[in-house]
C-alpha cells in the first residue's frame, strides 16, 4: 500500500521521514555487515531488493473492481532478517517514488514503516514464533507471509487514518477512519494476502528442499 505524495504534510511528514531515515540507516549498516560476513550470499541482497520492488509494484485485480499488490517484504525478512528487509524495502520505495509515481518522497517514511515493519519485521517475527512452536517450514513461512501482508495493511490504515483524522476537514474520528479504511481494504487485500501466504510458503519449502545449507547459513533453520 502506497500513501500518495502530499497526503502526509508538515510535522507528521517530517516525523515519518526522520523515522524512515533512522530505519534505513540501520538497514544499510546491517546490509554492509551481511555482505562482509557472507560475501558468497551477497546476490541475495539484490534478489531480495528486486523481489520487493517488483512484487510491491505489480497491480493485481480483485473481484471488487480495484487492484492491489502483495508486499514481498515478508519473504525477504525471513531470509535476510528484518533489519536488512527494512533496508531493502526503503530502497525499493525510493525507486518507486522517483521513477514510477508510486508513493512519494514526503510519504516515503510512512510507507517504509508500513511495508518494512509491517511486512519484513512482522513476517520474520511470525516465522520465528511458528517455528518455535514446531510448525514445519512451509507452514511457518506461509503464516509469516499472511501476517506480514495483513500487518502491512494494518499499519497503512493506521498511518492514513491518523493523518486524515487530524486533517483540515476530517470526515470521521480515528476509529471511524480505521473502520472505513480496513473495511475498504479487506475485500481486495484479503485474497492477495492469501496468495502471498501460498507463495511465501512454497518459496521457502522449495529452498529448503533444494539447498537447506543456505538456510542454515542464513540462520533461517537450525542445523
Amino acid at each position, binding site marked *: *500500500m*502506497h*500513501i*500518495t*505524495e*502530499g*497526503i502526509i*504534510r508538515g510535522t507528521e511528514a517530517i516525523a515519518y521521514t526522520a523515522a524512515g531515515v533512522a530505519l534505513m540507516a540501520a538497514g544499510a549498516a546491517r546490509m554492509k555487515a551481511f555482505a562482509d560476513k557472507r560475501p*558468497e*550470499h551477497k*546476490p*541475495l541482497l*539484490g*534478489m531480495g531488493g*528486486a*523481489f520487493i*520492488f*517488483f512484487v510491491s*509494484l*505489480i*497491480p493485481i*485485480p480483485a473481484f*471488487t*473492481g*480495484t*487492484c*492491489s*499488490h502483495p508486499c514481498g517484504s515478508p519473504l525477504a525478512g525471513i531470509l535476510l532478517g528484518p533489519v536488512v528487509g527494512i533496508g531493502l524495502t526503503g530502497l525499493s520505495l525510493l*525507486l518507486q*517514488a522517483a*521513477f*514510477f*509515481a*508510486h508513493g*512519494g518522497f514526503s510519504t516515503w517514511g510512512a510507507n517504509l514503516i508500513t511495508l518494512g515493519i509491517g511486512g519484513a519485521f512482522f513476517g520474520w517475527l511470525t516465522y520465528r514464533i511458528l517455528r518455535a512452536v514446531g510448525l514445519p517450514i512451509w507452514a511457518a513461512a506461509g503464516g509469516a507471509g499472511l501476517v506480514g501482508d495483513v500487518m502491512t495493511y494494518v499499519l497503512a490504515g493506521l498511518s*492514513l487514518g491518523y*493523518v*486524515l483524522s487530524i*486533517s*483540515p*476537514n*476530517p*470526515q*470521521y474520528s480515528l476509529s471511524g*477512519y480505521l*473502520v*472505513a*479504511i*480496513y*473495511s*475498504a*481494504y*479487506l*475485500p481486495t*487485500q484479503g485474497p492477495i494476502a492469501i496468495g502471498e501466504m501460498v507463495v511465501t510458503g512454497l518459496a521457502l519449502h*522449495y*529452498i529448503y528442499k*533444494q*539447498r537447506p545449507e*543456505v538456510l542454515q547459513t542464513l540462520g533461517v533453520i537450525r542445523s
Partner: protein
Amino acid sequence: MTRPARAAAARLLVIFGMTAAGCFAASAEDAPRPAFSGMDEAVNERMAENAGAAPRSPYIDTESLGDIWNMLLLGAGGICGFVIGRWWHLLFGNRGKAE
C-alpha cells in the same frame, strides 16, 4: 447450531457488515473512477481528498510522460526478472552443485 458455530457466524456477520460499511464510506461522494484502479487511488486518495488533504502530483511524474512510463515499467520488470531468476537458479537451483 452449536455455540462455537453461532459465535463464528456472528463474527462473520460483523466482518461483512464492516466491509459493507467501509465500501459505502469509501465510495461516498462518488465520482466515476476507472475500472480496476489501484486501492491507492480508490481508497486512500479519495478519503484524503474528502478530508481536505488532497494528494499532489509526483515530483517526477513519469505517468504523465506517455510511453516513457511503460518503458520504465517494462524495463524494471525485465531487470527484476533477470536478477531474481538468475540468482535464484545459481543459489537454489543446482542441488549439490553450487557452492
